[in-house]
């Protein structure tokens, strides 16, 4: 069985724009799930509202498409009702960081055995390109036409501080590493948070001087740096350039987790 068999073939091609990275993230997640050989009847994919949250509709397993920002609350309920289920949450930055921020920190604090895949496209893509909490400083969107003035949310640091057991960040360029990270997250007990920087050519790329989809992937490739390397540079007294995306594993620990079958 390959990951392509986890898709509902009759639903494809999906609704995402040309070059949208969400499809890549679904590929990587399903590939990791497929490697583990889980039974599709024992997996649940849960999502909120947004571009990213349309993902479970294309997957053969059971899914929940819930209210805006409350995907984690619903996922907690599913996991508590039947801890033997494998629960994966697909969520976006607007869903997780903006409206669902409190659900996120408390899910991290409770350390429920979920895997949260956050597709961070740095903008509200579905509603027309408004600035989101993760829009980088200077990023142009419809609500920040002169460039965003606010610092962006660092979701991984938030998850580490709130107490998630496994936190990692990758981009859509790093597909192999992302697959491995999702695999590790699915097998690690406790809340696993995987943040993925995703390109949004329609609403972010075209306003921020990325004419082609490949330009934005090239940006993700050249502006990302492994976290350990960034820390080494800082330790030696150097400076990491502003706007560098720090990728890699942030934390892997074993705090007591909720909903783990003994």
């Amino acid at each position, binding site marked *: 069985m390959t990951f392509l068999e986890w898709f509902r073939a009759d639903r*494809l091609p*999906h609704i*995402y724009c040309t070059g949208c990275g969400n499809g*890549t993230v679904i590929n*990587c997640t399903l590939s990791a799930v497929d490697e583990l050989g889980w039974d599709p009847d024992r997996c649940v994919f849960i999502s909120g509202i947004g571009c990213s949250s349309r993902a479970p509709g294309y997957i053969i397993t059971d899914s929940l498409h819930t209210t805006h920002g409350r995907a984690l609350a619903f996922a907690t309920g599913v996991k508590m009702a039947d801890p033997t289920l494998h629960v994966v949450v697909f969520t976006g930055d607007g869903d997780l960081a903006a409206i669902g921020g409190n659900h996120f920190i408390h899910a991290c604090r409770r350390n429920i055995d979920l895997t949260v895949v956050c597709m961070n496209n740095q903008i509200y893509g579905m509603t027309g390109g408004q600035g989101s909490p993760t829009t980088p400083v200077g990023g142009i969107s419809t609500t920040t036409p002169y460039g965003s003035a606010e610092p962006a949310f660092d979701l991984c640091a938030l998850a580490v501080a709130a107490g998630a057991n496994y936190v990692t960040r990758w981009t859509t360029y790093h597909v192999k590493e992302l697959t491995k990270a999702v695999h590790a997250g699915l097998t690690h007990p406790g809340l696993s948070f995987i943040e993925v920087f995703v390109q949004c050519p329609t609403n972010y790329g075209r306003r921020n001087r990325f004419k082609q989809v490949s330009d934005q992937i090239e940006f993700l490739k050249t502006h990302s740096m492994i976290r350990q390397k960034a820390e080494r540079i800082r330790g030696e007294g150097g400076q990491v350039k502003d706007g560098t995306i720090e990728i890699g594993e942030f934390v892997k620990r074993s705090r007591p987790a909720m909903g783990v079958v003994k």
Partner: protein
Amino acid sequence: MKLVIDEGRCKGCNLCTMVCPYRIFQPGTILNRRGIVVPVLDRPERCTNCRLQKLHGRTLCGMCQMICPDQAVRWDEERLFERHRMAIEF
């Protein structure tokens, strides 16, 4: 095995042209029936996965398939006695 781009799914983002280490995927020039410029395959028999997938029993490189946001790249089983092309590179 042979490399196939599913024209019904491809949306023409050309991400595969960027990641393929052999540059098998090349940006296309012709609009298809759905109004999309699908990448063309330049000597797909060079693909390692086509040749060695069966031997190793796993997907070898697969970057194009993983990065394709539209799940349009796949490897199909060849028919019996299908004509083959050979590519020898120096």
